């Protein structure tokens, strides 16, 4: 039987190193299968997160051969197997152990986003074309791969200033909800730090749900913020009109 060489990062906050394992290759096998094989047969204490094993829960993010991916969705036969497959924890968040990182920051900032706020007397009628934009963003499985790859968080560690692409689409989803009444533009500019994003689109490229993070969420949000805060005429108009949302 063919075998594949897997090189996994093993370690914790005190440091660590790659460890190599040989795993028998089966048809259709994904990286997470190989990790499970290693757990069951070599190192029972190998730490990894996973739940659905069907690309639906966003638990199993890692960097496979340097690329941020879901381990349950990455088939081994899509990788070059003449050399070892490396699996590392996502880099932007502090390591806990092996492939598991501390992603609690994401939950903290998410809580600061002003929640859905419908009007008191809402008639709950919405048409398919109105909900579709929001539905795209609500496909997000919170794998945080976009947060991992965004250079503002990854290389510049601006976690206090910038909430990252996942959280921006969360805001976009609320802002584009046909029945929401809140205005999050100030939040976007100040707490969310949307100005930091320079539209490199790296986030969109890694999104396993194929959400158009930059084109459909961040750019329209940037435009709204710019219109309000940098266009004095718009600003005045909105002040008098009481800022209706489209």
């Amino acid at each position, binding site marked *: 039987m063919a075998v594949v060489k897997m090189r996994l990062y093993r370690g914790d906050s005190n440091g660590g190193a790659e460890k190599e394992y040989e795993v028998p290759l089966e048809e259709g096998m994904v990286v997470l299968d190989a990790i499970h094989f290693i757990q069951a047969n070599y190192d029972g*204490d190998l730490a990894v997160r996973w*739940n659905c094993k*069907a690309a*639906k829960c966003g638990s199993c993010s890692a960097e496979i051969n340097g690329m941020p991916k879901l381990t349950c969705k990455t088939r081994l036969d899509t990788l070059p197997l003449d050399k070892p497959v490396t699996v590392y924890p996502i880099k932007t968040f502090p390591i806990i152990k092996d492939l598991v990182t501390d992603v609690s920051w994401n939950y903290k900032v998410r809580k600061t986003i002003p*929640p859905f706020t419908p009007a008191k007397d809402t008639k709950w009628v919405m048409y398919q074309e109105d909900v579709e934009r929001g539905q795209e963003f609500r496909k997000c499985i919170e794998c945080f791969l976009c947060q991992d790859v965004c250079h503002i968080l990854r290389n510049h560690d601006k976690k206090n200033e910038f909430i990252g692409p996942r959280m921006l689409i969360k805001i976009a989803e609320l802002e584009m909800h046909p029945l929401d009444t809140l205005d999050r533009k100030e939040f976007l500019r100040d707490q969310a730090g949307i100005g930091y994003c320079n539209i490199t689109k790296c986030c969109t490229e890694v999104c396993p749900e194929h959400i158009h993070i930059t084109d459909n969420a961040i750019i329209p949000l940037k435009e709204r913020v710019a219109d309000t805060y940098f266009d004095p005429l718009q600003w005045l108009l909105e002040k008098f009109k009481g800022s209706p949302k489209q």
Partner: protein
Amino acid sequence: MEKYETHTHDVIVIGAGGAGLRAAIEASAQGASVGLVCKSLLGKAHTVMAEGGVAAALANVDTKDDWKTHFHDTMHGGKMLNNWRMAQLHAQEAPDRVKELEHWGALFDRTKDGKIMQRAFGGHTWKRLAHVGDRTGLEMIRTLQDRGIHSGMEVYMECTITHLLKDGERISGAFGYWRESGRFVLFKTKTVIIATGGIGKAYKVTSNSWEYTGDGQALAYEAGADLIDMEFVQFHPTGMVWPPSVRGILVTEAVRGEGGLLTNRNGERFMEKYDPERMELSTRDVVARSIYTEVMEGRGSPHGGAYLDISHRGADYVKKKLPSMYHQFMEFAEIDITKEPMEVFPTTHYIMGGIRVDADTAGSTVPGLFAAGEAAGGMHGANRLGGNSLSDLLVFGRRAGLGAAQYANELRDNALKIDDVELEKAAREMTRPFENAEGENPYTVHQALQEAMGAYIGVFRTREKISDGIEEIQVLKDRASQLRIEGSRMFNPGWHLCKDLKSMLIVSEAIARCALQREESRGAHSRVDFPKYDDEKWGRVNSVISKENGNMKIGTSPLPQIPEELRKIVEGGHK
């Protein structure tokens, strides 16, 4: 005993799926101090994987629908073994619970006139399942998660509860460990709501995740609560078959709801033989047995399944209504379902049985202990209809939150005690695997259990097979008492599995003993040696499991008596 941290709440909810979140939201709204504890990160519970939809008689598409028809369908789907009161409350309250999700921000697919869209599903008379493509569970859990984090509850993520503690007869605490550090934590609490989901990981071929190890059922059993109807394990008719890596992963019933056709290797639509009226949209127990029979009799597909074809609906429609199925097959199996059929075979999916609860309050037989969602029993009888779980989570999650908050409120000034001896025993049990110099690898024992459950207590059962299974479970219990693990307590899945395995062995034994006792076939429980319904004897009783003097006791108790006006609804045609 080593140092541990302590938190105090009125209500501890174990589990952050649909049931747990909805319970925690309700208990918080009632003013209780709530702690929500879950094994995984928030938002990753099983509910996130639900695909097809949530059943509620909104009557948006088929305007003749009403709660009575939903109730009727549910009782028939459950082969009359359902707790009638649960089925009634469920059918009556589900529409409000679904609308409430919309009020909390959910974006369901819409009808032309701007209402929540509904689709057909097996066993439902009318188009009843509110949905978002085939990712309804994700929509539901995000909505509840968003609502929950702004409701004032404390969330304890990646924290596993291993023991419940009592002050006399009453619940007084929950003990567990942080997955990350392995350190212990004690929750002092007046009430515990168990919303831990199912048991699928006791089987090899399953649609369930690592979390489904029956912890909640085992915790309740150990605390002295009754479990009912554990023999009723739902094998979903359509799990993926190929490649081996994805065997068991769910193919949503929505494929059949949207018009998918089942055929065998000879191209025959074999459901004609088994249920000519409802065909592919027959109930799950029937479809699962039909596929199983076709394959066993040599009419299976190349990898041992049946064909399921949706390509005739056209590529655009399929991609729009079943996007995640499209991607799932494209990416995992390299099959384009808009052009070719899928191969499917039954997969362990859901447990109808569970913790015995009072329909109105979700209270178990132990004071202070409540249960909701898949962990609770009774609602679905002998077979669950698709879509009725998500609605169950909402209806009884809310009721459990209410029930627990009320109980805690009545106990306001009552200081409950933690039994230090029990606490120390719990801690010692947890650290023991580190002390064993010899012993087996927990993964090996787990695999052996999974093989045994599939082989002995699967889709078709006989007395001999079940008895062999029970013997095997006894052997595995011994093996599981001597496990050895490597590494430290920091995020150590091997160590976690040691305790999970104990839970799985308890629920496996409960399933096996109930399956042996019930000498008839009903719903998901098919006895080859007793192929017929026995309404006189077994149609009148629930199976009951309890702990007595340290041993598992099996018995029956009479079904709650259905009132006359509801009986009429069940017996009437209701079309």
